[in-house]
C-alpha cells in the first residue's frame, strides 16, 4: 500500500520540525505531550510527536525508546531514521528509511535523506540513484550538488561536470552550481568550460574577486599567463575597494587568497592573521594560516 497523505509525497509533516511546531518551545510542548500521554498512553500521534520533540532536543536515545511503541507508523520510521542519522549512526537509519520509502517512494525529502545516508556509508551508486529519483520531483540545488559528488566518486567526472553545468542553466544560473561546475571542469583540465561558467557569476556579482581567482586559474591552465595575472590584479583591486567600505574578516580572507595566488605569501599571512584575530570562528582562514604561516616572514 502506498501512503496517501497529502504531504507524504513532498516529505511534509513527516520529516522535520513541523511536529514540534506549536506556539511554545519544544521542552514545554514535550511536557504537555507527556501529560496528554498519561491519559492516552496508546496514542500513536502523541507518541510520534513525543519522539520528534525528543529528537529535536537532542534526546536521541529517549526518542528511539519512544518510537518502539509505534512500530507500524510510517512517520515513526522516518523519525527513527533521522534520529540515527543525527546520532552519526547512518547505517542504522537505513532500514526504517527504506520502509518509509516503500510507502512514499516519491518523497524528495526522504530520498534526499537516504541519498545522504548512502553517501555517508560509502554507497555512492545508491546515493546517486536516490539523488536522481529526488530530482524527478524537485529541482533543489543540493540534489544536483550531491549527485555530482557521487558521480565524481564513481569516476564519472565528466558527467558530473556536465550535470552541474546543465543544472545551473535549469536552475536560473544558480551561483553555487555555476561555481561547482567551473571548479569541476578546472579539475578535468577543461579550463575553457571553467571560464564560461565563471562568466555566469561574474555577470551578477558586484564584487567578482572570488571568481576572478578561479578565472585566473583557468587562464593559467590555458597558457594565458598575462590574462591570468590581469584577472588576479582585477580581483585585488575589487577587494581593495570593497575593504574601503567593509572591513569584514571574510574580505580579508578573500584578499589573502588573492595574495597567495599572486605569490605574495607574507601579505597573505598578514591578512589571514588579521582575519582570524577578528573572526576566530573563520575556519577557512585558520586552515590557510596553518598552511602558510610557517616561514612566511613578517608582513607588517
Amino acid at each position, binding site marked *: 500500500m502506498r501512503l496517501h497523505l497529502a504531504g507524504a509525497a513532498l516529505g511534509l509533516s513527516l520529516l*522535520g520540525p513541523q511536529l514540534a511546531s506549536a506556539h511554545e518551545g519544544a521542552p514545554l510542548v514535550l511536557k504537555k505531550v507527556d501529560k496528554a500521554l498519561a491519559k492516552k498512553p496508546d496514542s500513536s500521534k502523541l507518541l510520534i510527536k513525543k519522539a520528534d520533540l525528543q529528537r529535536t532536543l537532542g534526546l536521541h536515545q529517549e526518542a528511539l525508546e519512544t518510537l518502539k511503541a509505534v512500530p507500524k507508523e510510517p512517520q515513526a520510521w522516518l523519525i527513527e531514521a533521522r534520529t540515527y542519522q543525527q546520532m552519526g549512526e547512518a547505517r542504522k537509519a537505513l532500514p526504517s528509511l527504506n520502509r518509509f520509502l516503500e510507502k512514499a517512494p516519491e518523497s524528495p525529502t526522504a530520498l534526499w535523506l537516504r541519498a545522504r545516508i548512502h553517501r555517508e556509508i560509502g554507497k555512492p551508486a545508491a546515493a546517486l540513484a536516490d539523488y536522481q529519483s529526488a530530482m524527478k520531483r524537485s529541482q533543489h540545488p543540493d540534489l544536483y550538488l550531491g549527485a555530482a559528488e557521487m558521480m565524481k566518486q564513481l569516476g564519472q567526472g565528466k558527467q558530473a561536470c556536465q550535470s552541474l553545468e546543465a543544472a545551473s542553466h535549469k536552475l536560473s*544560473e544558480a551561483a553555487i552550481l555555476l561555481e561547482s561546475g567551473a571548479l569541476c571542469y578546472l579539475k578535468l583540465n577543461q579550463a575553457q568550460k571553467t571560464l564560461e561558467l565563471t562568466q555566469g557569476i561574474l555577470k551578477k556579482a558586484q564584487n567578482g574577486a*572570488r571568481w576572478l581567482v578561479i578565472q585566473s586559474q583557468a587562464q593559467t591552465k590555458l597558457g594565458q599567463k598575462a590574462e591570468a595575472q590581469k584577472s588576479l590584479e582585477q580581483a585585488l583591486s575589487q577587494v581593495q575597494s570593497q575593504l574601503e567600505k567593509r572591513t569584514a574578516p571574510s574580505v580579508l580572507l578573500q584578499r589573502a587568497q588573492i595574495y597567495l595566488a599572486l605569490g605574495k605569501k607574507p601579505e597573505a599571512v598578514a591578512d589571514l592573521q588579521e582575519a582570524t584575530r577578528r573572526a576566530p570562528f573563520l575556519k577557512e582562514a585558520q586552515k590557510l594560516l596553518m598552511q602558510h604561516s610557517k616561514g612566511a616572514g613578517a608582513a607588517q
Partner: protein
Amino acid sequence: MNLLIASSLALSAAALPSRGPYIQQSNENSSYIVWRTEADSSGKVYYGEDGLTQSADSSAAGKQHEVKLSGLKAGTKYVYCIDGMPNCKVGGTPAYSFTTSPKVGEKQPVRFWAVGDSGTASGIQALVRDQMLKRTKYRKPDLFLHVGDMAYGSGTFSEFQIKFFGMYANILAHTPVWPAIGNHEGKTSDSVSTEGPYYQGYVLPKGGESGGLASGTEAYYSFDYANIHFIALESQLEEMRAEDGAMLKWLQMDLAATNQDWIVAFFHHPPYTKGSHDSDVETAHIQMRERALPILEAAGVDLVIGGHSHIYERSYLCYGAHETPTVAGNSIRDNKDGKLAGAGAYIKNADEDGGLHVVAGHGGTPTRQDSPTDHPLMYFTEIENGSVVVDIQGDVLRLENIRHDGEITDSVTVLKKNGLVATISSDEFVAGQKVDIHYQSNISGQKLSLEYQVEGGSWQTIATDLAEKGSYSWTLPDTQEKPLQVRLSTADGKYRYQVPGNFPVLSNPFKEVFAADAPWKFHFAETNKDWTAPEFVDVEWGEGKGSFAVCGCVPWQCGCGTYIADALLVPTVYFRKSFTIDSLPQEYELNMLYESGATIWLNGKQIYQGHLKEGMAFDERALPSSIGAVQESIRGSGADLKVGKNVLAVVVKKGHGIRPNLRFEASLRTRGNFQEASSSDCSCATASSRDHGFLALSLIVPLLVTRRRRKVTKDADI
C-alpha cells in the same frame, strides 16, 4: 513562481481579483503584479508613470496571474489597475501605485516594515498593522519583510488568503513584500520541491533578478535595495541548515559578491531568543546560530531579524556568540542602550563591532516568555504584540518597535563611520509647541547644524554650532499647516541626515471632546429606521462605557468598558452618543476602532462607511473585505457639527470567520475656529460662538483615556 495552466472551460476575459493585487520581485527596472481570480481568466495590467498609458498581459490564462512590468525607471512611482476594475483602461482611472527600487548602491533613505508570526486574522494582528500605518503616516515603508508564520496553523491556501493576503491587502497592493518561510507554512509547502501555497503565492528571485547571486531556489534568496543587501534564509527545514548544504555555501558566495553598505538578514528561527522558544535548546535556532551566523558575521552583517519566538527582543551590538548555550562574555561589543536620548547610538566603525539581533515574533499571535530570564544578549525584551520599522539612511540605521497600542517601546540607532542622525520626539506637531530634537554624529571634529524646510522652500536654520551629541528644544514655527522637513548637517555641509517624513504642523492643537471610555447608548435588536436621526428617542436603549465588545474582552484589545454578552449571537449593534459643543471648530477628528464593519452618521448625515454597504439588514454581517479590527481616523469640517447638542449614530456589524468579534470604541477631538468661507452648509454657528478660540465643551463623561497610553520604563527615544 507557479503559473497555473488555464482550464479551457469557464474562461472569462477579465475578472476581478479574489486575492491581491500585490507587488513581487521588484527591482530597478521591473516588477511583478500578482493576483488571483476565482475562475480561470486572462490577466492584464494597465499601468504607467503619468496615468494608465500601457498594458501587459499574463503569459497564460488561469487563476494565478503574475504579470511582469518591464522597462521601468528606477525609483519611479507607477500607477496601475487590473483589467476588470472600474474604468481600468488606457487613459482610465488607476487603482494602485508602486515605486520601483532605487538604483543599487544609491545612498537614499529607505524604510522597511518587519513582521513575524502574525498570521492569525485576529484583532491584535490588525491592530499591529494599523499602528504601523499610523506611525508611518508621514513616511510609508518602501518594503515589507515577513519573517515567517504568516498563515497559521498550516499555511494552507485559505489561511494565506485570510490571514495574510486579506489582512495586508492595502499594504501589499503598493509595497513589495519579501518573505522568509516559517514552520507553519512548512506544514503545507515544501522547500525542497518549492511546492505548496507559500511557493504558489510568491514570486521570489531565485535567479538573482533583484540583485544578489542566483540561489537557484525560491526557498532562500537575496536582493538589493538602494545601498542595502537583504538576505532571506530558509531556517525551518533541517536539510537547508546542513553545514555542507547548498544554502550556506550560496550564502558565503552571495556575501562575497556584494558591495552594499548594509547587510540585513532575515529568517524564521533567530539565533538568540528566550521567548516562547529557547535558542539554547532547540535545534533550528542552534544550527542557525552555529552555522549561518558565523558566515553572516564574517561578512559584517548589520541586522538579523527573526521570529518564531512570540516576543519582541532586541540585542546589544554583539558579535561572535555562536556557542551553545549562549553566554554574553565579550560578545557584547557595546553594553549601552543604543538610544539617542540615552547613552547614545551604537557606533559601528568596523564590521567586527557587531550587529543587532531582533526577534519580531510578535506580529499577531499571543506573546509569551517561557524562560525565567531574558536572553543575555538582549538589551530589551517585551512580551507584547507589535512590529518593527527600520530606517536606513547613509551610514545610519534606526529601528523602532511599535507596540500594538501605538507606543514606541524600543528604539535603537547604529552609526557607521560617517553617520549622523537626528530624531524628533512628537507624534503630532503644533505651531508654538516645543519639541526635542535628539542628534548624534560619528564624524569627529565637525560641529553640527539643524535646519528645517517648509514644503520644498529654502532651508532655514534651527541651530548651529552643535556638539557631536545632544538634544535641542525647538519651538515649532507656524507653517500655515504646510509640512516641514528637518535635517542635520556637518558644518562643512559634506554629510547630511534628513529626519524621515514630512511633518504637517497644525496651527491649532486638537482638544478632546470625548474619550474612548465615554458612555454610549447601544441596542442589539431590529430598530426603527429613523434611529440615525438626531431627534430619535433612545431612552429605551442600554447604556455603557466604551469600549464595547461582544465576544470577550482582552484588556489591551478593547478595554472591557462594556461587555455586551447578550449580543453574543447578534450580528449587529447600534450605538448613539450625544455631546454638546458651544462653538464651531475648524475641524473634528473621530478616532475609532471597530470590528468588523461600521457606518457612521453625524447629526443624521453619513460621514463614514467601512466594510458595509447601503441597506444591509440586521441579520447581515460585514462584508468579507474586513478582517479583524479596523482602526480609523476620520477628519471632517467643523461645519458638520452644531453648537449645542450633536449626535453620533453608529452601526457596527460582526465579520465572518470562526469566532468573529464585534467591537467598537470611539473618541472625538476638535481644533481651531470654524471659518465661514471653508464651508457652505453651516448656518448654525453664531459669530460670537466662533470668536471664542477653542471649544468650551460640555462633556458627558470627560474621562481621559489612559488605558492605551501605558508608559514603559525602558524607552524614551522616539
